[in-house]
């Protein structure tokens, strides 16, 4: 037995991956170069922006681990934002002054819109047996269309102050609420992934759907679950954006958020082939991407050249990880 244990791939970097090291290097280097970097306000910015991305990326990661793909998250962020704002505006009309109720109704509507899109995605994938990529490509277009149709692209105002000033821009222990929400979501997801049937089945379905079926795992339910989760998380991020900015906007999210969330998942070690990935690394990777963007700004890198650096660093980080991990194929 011991001989086998010794043969299992080991080494510190292999177990924890390159990402934490890359993040550490980035933070240390930036702190040396630019004192603003570790200023409290900047740290706050990074954490807040990373929170939005983390929440969306966690949902995305679960979908990908189950062997799917969710292109619609960006559109859901936008839809949830405008739905939340519209509904709060409407609720404020019928329940004047009752901020708590208005906020609750608005948030529920926003999350609900994400849930609906997620359910549509999941049901199409599991019932029609169409790949997640195609289904969510379709719902991405449709969802964005609905978001724009609701607002005509015009920002939606009229949310209670308690939501915008109190919640969106409020802080606890010196950190924005969004950071705590992201942390809570992360902890829940770590638990879900490690300790629940749902997490186990998501891995099994992504790893080998045929094996899951013959082992008696019902695929459909869990696939729908992953998309629903992703939809709700994306909606949550949309609501947080709405609270922060103070208006519902159909321009939130978009292709950019979609690509970033997949990038965060993939750079965080989630395999697009399914079955592999850990949510805490995904969160780390979201933090890495956000910090990288912040660093490029603080370093006064020309805005037009920033994408070049971003692209190179992204590829380099994953390439190094890949070369380190490269192992022989097994039979």
């Amino acid at each position, binding site marked *: 037995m011991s001989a086998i244990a010794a043969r299992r791939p080991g080494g510190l970097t292999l177990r924890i991956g390159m990402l934490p090291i890359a993040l550490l290097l980035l933070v240390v280097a930036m702190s040396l170069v630019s004192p603003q970097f570790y200023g409290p306000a900047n740290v706050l910015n990074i954490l807040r922006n990373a929170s939005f991305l983390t929440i969306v990326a966690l949902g995305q990661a679960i979908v990908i681990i189950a062997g799917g793909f969710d*292109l619609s998250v960006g559109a859901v962020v936008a839809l949830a934002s405008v739905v939340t704002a519209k509904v709060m505006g409407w609720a404020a009309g019928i329940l004047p002054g009752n901020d708590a109720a208005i906020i609750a109704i608005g948030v529920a509507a926003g999350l609900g819109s994400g849930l609906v899109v997620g359910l549509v995605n999941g049901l*199409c994938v599991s019932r*029609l*047996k*169409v*790949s997640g*990529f*195609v*289904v969510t*490509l*379709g*719902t*991405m*277009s*449709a*969802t*964005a*269309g*609905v978001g*724009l*149709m609701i607002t005509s692209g015009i920002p939606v105002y009229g949310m209670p102050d308690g939501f915008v000033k109190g919640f969106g821009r409020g802080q606890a222990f010196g950190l924005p609420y969004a950071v705590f929400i992201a942390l809570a979501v992360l902890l829940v997801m770590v638990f879900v992934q490690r300790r629940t049937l749902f997490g186990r089945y998501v891995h099994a379905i992504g790893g080998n759907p045929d094996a899951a079926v013959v082992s008696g795992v019902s695929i459909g339910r869990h696939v729908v679950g992953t998309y629903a989760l992703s939809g709700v998380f994306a909606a949550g991020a949309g609501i947080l954006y709405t609270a922060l900015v103070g208006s519902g906007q159909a321009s939130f999210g978009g*292709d950019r958020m979609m*690509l970033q969330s*997949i*990038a965060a998942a*993939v*750079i965080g070690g989630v*395999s*697009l082939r399914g079955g592999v990935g850990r949510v805490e690394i995904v969160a780390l990777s979201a933090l890495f991407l956000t910090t990288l963007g912040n660093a490029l700004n603080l370093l006064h890198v*020309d805005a*037009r*050249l*920033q*994408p*070049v*650096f*971003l*692209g*190179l660093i*992204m*590829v380099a980080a*994953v*390439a190094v990880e*890949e*070369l380190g991990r*490269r192992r022989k*194929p097994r039979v």
Partner: protein
Amino acid sequence: MSDASSPPALAMAAPSNAPTLRQRLWQAALPIALVVLLLGFSAVDARVLGLANLLNVAQQTSYLALFAMAQTVVILTRGFDLSLGPTVSMVSVASAMALAAAAAAGLSPVAVLALGLAAGLGIGLAAGAFNGIVVAFLGVSPFVATLGSYNIAIGVATTISGGRPVQGVPDLFSDVLYRGSVFGVPAAIAIAILVALLLHLVLTGTVFGRSLYLVGTNPRAAAVAGLPVKRILALAYLLCSGLAALGALMMTARTGSGEPNLGGSLSLQAIAAAVVGGTSLAGGRGGVGTAVLGALFVTILSNGMNLTRIDGYVQMIVLGVIVILGVVLDRARLSGR
């Protein structure tokens, strides 16, 4: 011959191994859907089936088909190219700058043209080489690799152009690649048909094409069978970007200027077109036919909706629903019902 489980009317249609009429109908599901779509639109507005519009549709399709074919080459190997759109922008800007500079330097028309084409194809192939090396030799997943080059190409395109359209492209360029025609067929359509034929030959008739399918179906088996998997993968990305560059040159001729944002959302559109036509993202299935069919489908749909005056946002919703339906149809075709 009498086969109890097959529908009685068709029982005589064919021996059990050959496709039945019903199977043939499913095979043709997407083309039939296309015809139905066209007829439906023309019922609302007769101009949809007018010669002018059909030519218009053909012309629009040729660009998208070219990009869908480019994507298909890498999708066959289980990859895709997110950087296709930005590569198109980059090629557009670079070739326009080269053309403008050459024209300004008073070179002969042939030299100007050659320089422009060389600059465009060169930078396109450079992008392809980057993707190919990163995917094949560094083992980075196609998503990350091409998302990286997506960002890089955007940066390069906006930096070298200063973010503005590059003017001064000689008319000659558009005269050849846009207004030109071969036997009365507009240049764009002619080029697309030529590329489609050549690519079809490459995919079905060459060792490289065969290898793309084998690598896409089972990369490990391909490696064990001694196929140079890495080289094939790298070549696939090179070919993809080369085709994208060609499309970018044609689009640049269409606009008559180098546009730093020309590719915009083309990456996803091209993938969508390929997939709607029946190319499988799991690799190993698809070809020129699926790419062209998908491009036609998407183009006819949006052309029809434009001509029948469907609102912009509604178009987005309809497009989304139809994309899903298209693929459902394709699956039905495969399962041979």
